[in-house]
């Protein structure tokens, strides 16, 4: 598959050169790339799922290595792997269940023979999912697991049930791929709509005449605030400018363009202003498994200020930002140091970067980290596309999206390198 390889290479190159900015864009493009990898992958008659998983993993490793800071890449790779596992699991279990059921029904003899397998297949699938991982609150509360994968699995299970063994196999291989692609498409849709889904909940959180503080710029935050505005809530927004990239300026512009009362403040003024603030709403770069947040630099300070004044600190994050890794994991490269030129003009300071005199080592160092780590105890609430969650609940959410087999996978290829 030369064309897939070139696609992969191109994407790798872009990732490497930091040409794709933002976890949303990265997540989306990664998913699209993986979809084409899956669709181009030839599948043998046996162990189709394993073949697919291997193919995705191979590409995924490269992608993660290309830009280890962008955790969304790894998240999406794991999500896709999880989808493949699920899709693989459900038809087989359904098939087995179908056999069992038919065996049972053979004993019983007749009647509701036709309807029963379909229901039982779904039930068995759900049960099997539950045995696969600890039950999450969501799955416990809902009778059926989330509707994303189930319709296809149940129908496929139902269809394949009656067929002969060989025919069943070939159709299943094609079906597996088809189903996986179908599910990946849904994942893309999820990523596309995550802003809207999060924004829908805005009215529940933003109340009349409140003052909201945010730092830097995040599209999710923008949509969230605008959604509240559209619902006729009137409130004010304080935007901290987010030095040194000053994306807060852009956000302020956008907010004003959409008719919101906006106040722009310096990052250092956050503590002074926090007592007037009702709620801090910020975006995130990634949400770690322990509920900690990797966020644009400066947010830890804001979170501490919010805690000092007992202001709720709300983090908006699409589900693609949920990372199944823990921040203490050495594999997680938490930060990226960008060019010092964002802080100061090279020309003006070139005499401080003087290596030819003295000991040859410069006296001036400029450090420009991109991210902050906000510990979970400072976060009051996460709002994802599935609703609001407590930081301590994040690991549960993660169990919904990722299978435990994949968490460790990134580390295995390390010796290969």
């Amino acid at each position, binding site marked *: 598959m030369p064309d897939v390889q*070139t696609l992969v*290479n*191109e994407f790798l*190159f872009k990732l*490497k*050169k*930091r*040409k794709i900015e933002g976890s949303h864009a990265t997540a989306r493009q990664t998913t699209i790339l993986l979809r084409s990898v899956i669709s181009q992958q030839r599948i043998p008659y046996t162990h189709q799922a394993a073949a697919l998983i291997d193919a995705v993993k191979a590409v995924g490793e490269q992608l993660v*290595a290309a830009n*280890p800071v962008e955790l969304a890449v790894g998240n999406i790779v794991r999500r896709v792997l999880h989808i493949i596992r699920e899709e693989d699991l459900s038809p087989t279990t359904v098939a087995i269940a179908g056999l069992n059921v038919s065996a049972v029904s053979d004993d019983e003899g007749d009647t509701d023979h036709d309807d029963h397998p379909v229901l039982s297949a779904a039930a068995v699938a759900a049960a099997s999912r539950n045995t696969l991982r600890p039950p999450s609150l969501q799955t416990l509360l809902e009778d059926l697991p989330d509707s994303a994968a189930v319709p296809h699995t149940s129908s496929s299970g139902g269809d394949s049930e009656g067929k002969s063994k060989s025919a069943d196999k070939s159709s299943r291989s094609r079906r597996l791929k088809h189903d996986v692609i179908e599910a990946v498409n849904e994942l893309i849709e999820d990523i596309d709509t995550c802003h809207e889904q999060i924004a829908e909940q805005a009215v529940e959180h933003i109340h009349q005449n409140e003052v909201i503080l945010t730092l830097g710029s995040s599209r999710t935050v923008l949509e969230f605030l605008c959604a509240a505005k559209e619902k006729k809530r009137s409130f004010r927004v304080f935007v901290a400018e987010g030095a040194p990239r000053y994306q807060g300026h852009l956000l302020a512009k956008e907010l004003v363009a959409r008719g919101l009362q906006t106040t722009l403040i310096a990052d250092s003024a956050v503590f002074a202003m926090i007592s007037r603030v009702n709620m801090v709403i910020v975006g995130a770069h990634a949400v770690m498994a322990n509920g900690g947040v990797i966020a644009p630099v400066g947010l830890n300070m804001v979170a501490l200020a919010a805690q000092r004044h007992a202001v709720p600190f709300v983090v908006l994050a699409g589900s693609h930002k949920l990372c199944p890794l823990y921040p203490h994991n050495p594999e997680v*490269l938490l930060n990226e*140091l*960008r*060019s*010092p*030129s*964002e802080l100061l*003009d*090279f*020309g*003006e*300071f*070139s*005499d401080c*970067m*003087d*290596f*030819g*005199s*003295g*000991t*040859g*080592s*410069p006296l001036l*160092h*400029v450090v*420009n980290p991109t991210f902050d780590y906000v510990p979970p105890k400072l976060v009051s609430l996460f709002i994802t596309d599935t609703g609001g969650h407590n930081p301590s609940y994040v690991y549960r959410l993660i169990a919904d999206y990722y299978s435990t087999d994949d968490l460790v996978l990134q580390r295995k290829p*390390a010796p290969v*390198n």
Partner: protein
Amino acid sequence: MAPKRIRARAVSDDPEDLARVPLQAVLLADSFTTRFRPITLERPKVLLPLVNLPMIEYTLAWLESAGVEEVFVFCCAHAKQVMSYLENSQWKSLPKFSVTTIESHNSISAGDALRLIYERNVIHGDFVLISGDTLSNMSLTRALQEHKERKKKDSNAIMTMVVQRSKPSPITQQSRLGTDGLFMAIDPTTKQLLYYEENTNHSKGTLSIDKMLLVDNTSITLHNDIQDCYIDICSLEVLSLFTDNFDYQHLRRHFVKGLLIDDIMGYKIFTHEIHSSYAARVDNYRGYDTISKDIIQRWTYPLVPDVLSLGNSATKLERQGMYRSSEIGQSRSAQIGPHTVIGTGTTIGSNTKITNSVVGKGCTIGSNAVIEGSYVWDNVIIEDECELRHAIVCDGVVMKSRSVLKPGVVLSFKVVIGQNFVVPPYSKVSLLKQPTKQDSDEELEYADNNSDTLDSATGTMDKLNGDPLLEFSEMEHHVSSELGYGGVGYIWSLCEGSHEEEWRHSVAPIPAEKLAEITQVIEDDLELVSQDSNAPASSGELKPDTQINAEDDAVYFEKEVEATFLRAVNENVEVDHVILEVNSLRLSYNMQAADCAGAIFHSMMKLALDAPHSMQNELLRNVHNTVNAWQKLLKSYLPGKDEEIEVILKFEEICLESVKELSPLFTQILHLLYDKDIITEEAIEDWESEKKDADEADRVFVKQAEIFLQWLREAPEEDDEEDGE
């Protein structure tokens, strides 16, 4: 040739009309200098590792990210190596980015290279001209857009030069990139480059500019705080200019200066200043050192080791700017300091200290070694208790135990340093013997030398590779004395004359005494300059009252004008020249035309007084003569009434204060001036009305001139009557 050229033109015109031309770049993979010898005898400069990556990687990565789609790599020296490197690199397989090599064996300068490229007829529009040792992270879009817009407006704007501001201190220039001072004159509004002077000699402290520059341009800013990034956006005309002027060799020294001075066809060069992005060129060892450190400090982001790392060797940035690849064997007791890069597969023994250094792939470093501010390339073996300070150590070097490299040492490929041997400061060691011919002009003779030494180099290398044992033993036999026991290689003797200058371009920090020397020279300069131009101002206490200063200035100005005037009288200088001189004085003292007129009148009266006279009558005649002789000069400063009044007031002042002798003659002289049309009637009337409200003392002369004034008031009526009749 001729038909080809025509075709080239035809092709060039065509695609410009088309909507989109892919952006092209010419990358010169040869610097055409000898600064990096002896290393460059064995490997081309663009393939030398800069923080463990060949320099050309940075250049190509930048070109790719800047949106260039087609790169023509011009290879000259060691063309085979460059080509085979590119063949195996990632750049060949990228879509939308093509790298084409152009090989030449007889090009000896950038000029030749561009001529050859023109002959090949591969460039079809605007292109980026860069050498393979330049790295940058600037965005080209704005510079390119500006260039295109200018080109559209003025087809003579053929080149945009990227420049960067840096601190103007010559110490910084010297100690950062090791380059000489650069002096530019730029039109502040259009950003046109008007003057370009490299190698400005700071010890001289002066610089001469063609005065036509001042005549032709309304405003000029002079810069010594600008650094040339050696990134140029050129139009196709640049190539044809090189072809037309076959003597152009050096891009800056010949082409840019030629264009600026000769003013051929009115072609113009413009500048584009970058602010927050980084661009620099590795020109010499000091530049190599500085730019390596800039990379480690991430000024070149995203062109930094942990992002760029090639292939599967992932480099990670750890605390305090330490970059470490995977699979490093590091002893627990080894100390690796901040701002250090360690390559893959390197092992480091116990108690070894590494600070501010770059260590390449697969090196073996023994225990108790000290590496400070050094650049150790790939597969180097450093045995126990070696000491390296501010040195460059190339691939495959072996340093036997307890050998020492003093600051500024360069060890070329596969040199072996014997046990306990101390390599003296600033020495360069190579397996190849130093070419016997000394370069008088490094650029022009480089290629000749190079072809000789290249052959011998490859010969030696082949021999070395072919039968290493034999060769080694033979070599050992020959040169063991030069580099200690078991050492292999030759210490190059320093070029005559440049011995003193060796510290300028080495990787080692500038010694304190040299720094002090430079600073001293500069301070002397400053003192000299300030004494020259503005003695009273720099005499320690700056007078806080600007009024006093201005008055002082006026006094000095007057004296200067007087001196000029007297000289003119004594030497019979033409009036036009005197006007010119007074004009320049006026500009330098920032005076008005009225001040000039006053000063000149003052000098004229002085002159008349100085001439021998015994009687009032004689004095009057003297004045008469002087005014007659110099009325043209005076008149040229009397464009209007105000200036004329100023002259009268000045005259009053003279009569009152300095030269009492003249006071009785006030009316006569005033009359004289009126007769000579130097002072008009209106001016006199205005003067009178101005004086009306003045004190009695001030009105002395008005009273004295009463009759004259009376006559004046009547005169016009008479004139009218006469006219009427």
